[in-house]
């Protein structure tokens, strides 16, 4: 097998896994074998078997059902915070790239100062300021990742606005907003999409980290990070409590990264030509 075909196989597996995850998240209430929050202390710490595929946790809750439900919070965090980041980044990036020199300098200075903070630290700061919870976490992640998009959008906009077709459209008297929506945005979408898949994966990891620290999703809502937090008290008695959420989290992030990598090659005309 060539390098390319291996990469293709990885890409297909990753896409399949994400689709599966998406379907699971949407249909979770219909397909889970048990309620994810129902406790039954008589069956605490049951190891994985045919009745409880991934075993049970310290309250006797079914881990398999909790992991399926956990995909909901993971994907919601990914979608919402990436959308926030793209939205803010797009506006600021376009403004900086197409606006005046002064607004460009000020906006980029702002974005760079945001970028200079370590991500998790900034997220913890934001969350401890606005209170613990999923909504705050999504907002924090969205804001924190917006500078990356602002940088990409600005760079692309600077190039595209000097292309001849944009110049021509301007000469023909097309209004500014129409020009932005028809000519500029479609041409920078490729890069934004690639960056989105990477941000998506990072957002899931950060949500899990914050939940692990007790700052994110609040119990008993199933979240992979929260499940790992519960598991750490029982690593010896019930290792399955840590293993399965950890594996699913790792696969999800890995898949998004593979998709991101592959897309960046496929959508980049410069690499394709080689």
């Amino acid at each position, binding site marked *: 097998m060539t390098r390319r075909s291996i990469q293709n196989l990885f890409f297909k597996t990753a896409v399949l896994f994400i689709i599966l995850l998406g379907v699971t998240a949407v249909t979770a209430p219909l397909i889970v074998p048990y309620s994810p929050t129902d406790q039954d*202390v008589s069956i605490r710490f049951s190891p994985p078997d045919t009745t409880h595929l991934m075993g049970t946790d310290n309250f006797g809750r079914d881990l398999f059902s909790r992991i399926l439900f956990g995909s909901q919070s993971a994907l919601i965090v990914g979608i919402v915070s990436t959308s926030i980041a793209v939205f803010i980044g797009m506006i600021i990036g376009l403004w900086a790239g197409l606006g005046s020199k002064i607004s460009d300098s000020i906006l980029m200075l702002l974005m760079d100062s945001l970028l200079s903070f370590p991500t998790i630290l900034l997220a913890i700061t934001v969350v401890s300021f606005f209170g*613990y919870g999923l909504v705050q976490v999504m907002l924090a992640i969205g804001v924190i990742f917006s500078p990356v998009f602002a940088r990409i959008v600005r760079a692309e906009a600077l190039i595209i606005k000097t292309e001849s077709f944009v110049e021509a459209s301007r000469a023909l008297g097309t209004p500014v907003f129409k020009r932005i929506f028809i000519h500029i945005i479609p041409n920078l979408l490729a890069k934004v999409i690639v960056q989105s898949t990477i941000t998506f994966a990072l957002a899931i990891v950060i949500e899990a980290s914050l939940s692990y620290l007790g700052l994110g999703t609040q119990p008993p809502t199933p979240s992979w990070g929260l499940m790992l937090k519960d598991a750490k008290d029982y690593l*010896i008695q019930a290792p399955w409590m840590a293993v399965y959420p950890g594996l699913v989290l790792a696969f999800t992030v890995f898949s998004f990264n593979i998709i991101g990598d592959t897309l960046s090659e496929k959508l980049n005309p410069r690499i394709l030509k080689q």
Partner: protein
Amino acid sequence: MIKRFTVALVLVLMLTIPGGAFANGEKEIKPLNFALSGNPDTLDPQATSGTLTFQVDKSIFDTLAEPDENGVIVPALAESWDVSEDSLVWTFHLRKGVKFHNGDTLSSADVKATFERIVDEKTASPNKKAFDVIKSISTPDNLTVVFTLDKPYAPFLGSIASGWGAILPKSLIDADHDFGSEPVGTGPYVMTEWVRDSKIVLSKNKDYWMVGYPKIDQINMNIIPESSVQMQGLVSGQLDIVYMVGNDDVPILEKSEDVKLVKGLTSLIMVMAINCSAAPFDNLKVRQALNYAIDKQKVLDTAYAGGKPIGTFMDYGNAYYKDFTNLYPYNPEKAKQLLKEAGVDLSREIKMYLPQNYPPHVKAGEMYQEMLTKVGLNVKIQMVDWSTWISDVYRKSQFDLTVIGHTGKLDPNGTLSGYGKGKYVQWNNDEAASLIEKAAVTMGYEERKALYDKALGIMAREVPFVYTGSSYRIQGFRKNIDGFRMTPNLDTFDFRWTNFK
């Protein structure tokens, strides 16, 4: 060439000889490694009511009197005391030649300054009430302190002997010293280092007034909130004592040959506190419903290390305990019915605040949440850190429900004082409040017991809490540890007798 080689060889040898080999002359200090379950908010014994603070301060400070192993109050910094016939004048005779860690010698002026500081509004001590009864303090000589009280006050000796009765040096009080981060007392250990959220190092006070004590030179209080880390530390020998082993860890610890376990009932009152000031919990029926909805024994067995259910606000082993557990047995159907009768809007969101540095309370909270959900209530969990819990939940009553354990007190008044007149549960009941106040100024066990029985009965029926129970405590020790004591009713650690075998 050879010379150069020799130099290199010597250098290499110097690098490989362990550093310890040169320090043979000094006596090696063997510290005791202890696990503390959280970072104290302050170490000023007058500034807080947090147990973690007193668990550390017990080794740094002394009190005039203290409870012994059996809970009997015995002399400490005071060698003896006399009480006048009318119980109004308490005269304490201080021990001679006791040194503070800063070199000051203990005198009656220090005692006077200490108690003046705690009742000073500026100190804002949560335990001020315990000493408000003091009318005047006089110091006839260097070693005699006379307290004159407003009224006969039975809990006075208990307050003097509790952690918040710690004696501070006058010179530092006058200098406005920050006792919160640099505590200075007369205690068996001197605090030499406090790395926030990591460890507190205590070194032996060589001038301690109990000759021959403490035994161990140094105690490292490692701040470790996670019980699994504590347990692994105990098994591997990195920790010598874990004072509270989780129920789920017992099977693993029992397998270890180097660890011994000791089980006993705590004086803790485990509760789910209810904020009675706001709807729907201002309605007695709703509070009763909460009590019916909770399977208390199940929570004790799963979240805590097992225990005895209590039906009222007094710990199970207390001499003033009275059994009311039959009032609201576990009965979810009855709970649903009561909620219906009360006409509660079930969709209204109820916030349950959990102190995230106490995993057992968090686990109990998750169980309460599930049981309350089953009777139809919409309960949302909100985790908070310890300082937020103290400042917002406890001091400002910003909560609907919360989960906590109240430590026992030397005198039942310490446990009950203030209830019926608000407190953090915002529960008002004039009859209970006046019974509790009356019991405080009544002398004699029988007389006081009769009053407390009535007050506890009201609290049991009116349920400003879900009274879960007094939990067991399983202590884990390395086999070579001997003589570790916990102060009865106060839940603090007494390392003076602790030693390596």
